């Protein structure tokens, strides 16, 4: 770290004309080329000297990369280069996927969010990524352009470790797709940082709850955690418990306990494992309580 570069180290800027050209370039320069969208992770890592690519490949301008589309049947499509402020400002996102906007709103600062993208947040695969939980509980998938053609990747199976994903050389995420969320869903993202806002997450708790007549309690919950495991963590067990039993102070406490037990945080400069576990419990409790109460309120309203 003491040798961080004063500015960005030398590299070539590449702006391909097509996706195919971009993929090809990445394949032809394995280990030497990197894609970027907002660059907010890329430039930092390049300056730190952790990444030493000779080529940075800009794909923001390619077709579809900057569009937000909503289809009442299929759901939401976010071009990979749509920045976070555009997501936060989108009427469709706010109407149907408010949790996505809520999570994006907690990232860094306004000016950084004019560059940072959700696709970059995902592809960077930091367990602290703030928007990953919302994408996970909305069952997002990624549309990937690779050298062998196009494919979908489910986000649930996308992360392999810190900074590691299932993407291969030459793969470019072009879109994020979100299916229509369950009817009546309510969500909450609680981020605990050192500062009031703007810090990275010591822990981040995402909860999405929605009515489901097929389960005994009448409600289902999806819970995802940031910064407490090598990858963003989806805790199924707690949701199971709340499907069985109606949300009450006791069941929520039991669910929060299960969530705490499911995570395996480490000690780092941002927080100790001990504190993180306790915060996972307390803030899961807080988030579940909020979502359960919102669900109850909206049930009454109908």
């Amino acid at each position, binding site marked *: 770290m003491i040798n961080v570069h*004063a*500015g*960005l*180290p*030398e*590299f*070539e*800027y590449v702006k391909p004309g097509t996706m195919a050209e971009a993929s090809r370039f990445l394949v032809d320069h394995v280990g030497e080329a990197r894609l970027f969208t*907002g*660059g*907010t992770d890329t*430039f*930092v890592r390049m*300056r730190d000297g952790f990444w030493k690519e000779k080529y*940075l490949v*800009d794909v923001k301008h390619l077709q579809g990369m900057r569009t937000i589309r909503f289809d009442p049947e299929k759901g939401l499509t976010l071009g990979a280069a749509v920045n976070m*402020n555009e997501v936060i400002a989108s009427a469709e996102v706010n109407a149907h996927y408010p949790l996505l906007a809520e999570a994006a709103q907690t990232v*860094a*600062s*306004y*000016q*950084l969010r*004019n*560059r940072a993208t959700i696709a970059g947040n995902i592809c960077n695969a930091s367990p602290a990524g703030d928007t990953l939980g919302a994408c996970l509980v909305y069952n997002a998938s990624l549309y990937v352009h690779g050298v062998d053609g196009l494919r979908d990747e489910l986000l649930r199976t996308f992360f392999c470790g810190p900074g590691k994903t299932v993407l291969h050389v030459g793969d470019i995420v072009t879109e994020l797709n979100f299916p229509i969320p369950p009817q009546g869903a309510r969500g909450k993202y609680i981020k605990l940082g050192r*500062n009031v*806002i*703007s810090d990275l997450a010591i822990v981040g708790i995402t909860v999405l709850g929605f009515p489901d007549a097929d389960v005994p309690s009448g409600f289902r919950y999806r819970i995802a955690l940031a910064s407490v495991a090598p990858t963003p963590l989806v805790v199924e067990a707690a949701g199971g418990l709340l499907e069985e039993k109606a949300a009450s102070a006791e069941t929520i406490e039991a669910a929060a306990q299960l969530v705490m037990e499911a995570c395996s945080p480490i000690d780092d400069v941002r927080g100790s494992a001990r504190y993180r576990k306790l915060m996972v419990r307390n803030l899961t409790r807080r988030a579940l309580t909020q979502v359960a109460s919102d669900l109850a309120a909206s049930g009454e309203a109908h």
Partner: protein
Amino acid sequence: MSNHKINVTVNGEVEVVEVPANMTLLRMLREKLALTGTKNGCSAGECGACTVILNGEPVNSCMVLAVECDGASVMTIEGLSKDGQLHALQQAVIDQGAVQCGFCTPGVLMSAYALLQRNAKPTDEEIREALVGNLCRCTGYNRIVEAVKQAADQPETVAA
């Protein structure tokens, strides 16, 4: 490393600049155009001293490559006052005593300007949230917040 020739409109003037690929917008403004009002406090997207308006939105100019700005329009602190006439925000910063060392001030003003463009009557919380990426070590922030409120109360601010 190759150079790129770009066209970029800065404070209303069209500039043609040769920039190396690794040159950030921040460095281009300071080193190629001698617009030194935009400051470098970290080169890492954290401090906000380098904030400028790019195509109408504030960005950390240390987190943008100059080559990415080909065809873009940039506004810096030097473009905020017009013909020696201070913008209402600048006057408000003076009136409220919201500047000390002044190193954060250009970035703060750019963020505040952008805020008032998108939200003519921001609340205290909205102002603080909009400025959270502009670190100031001197003022303790409250006077900056008051300055933004003062400017927001003036009708000409948003039109400017």
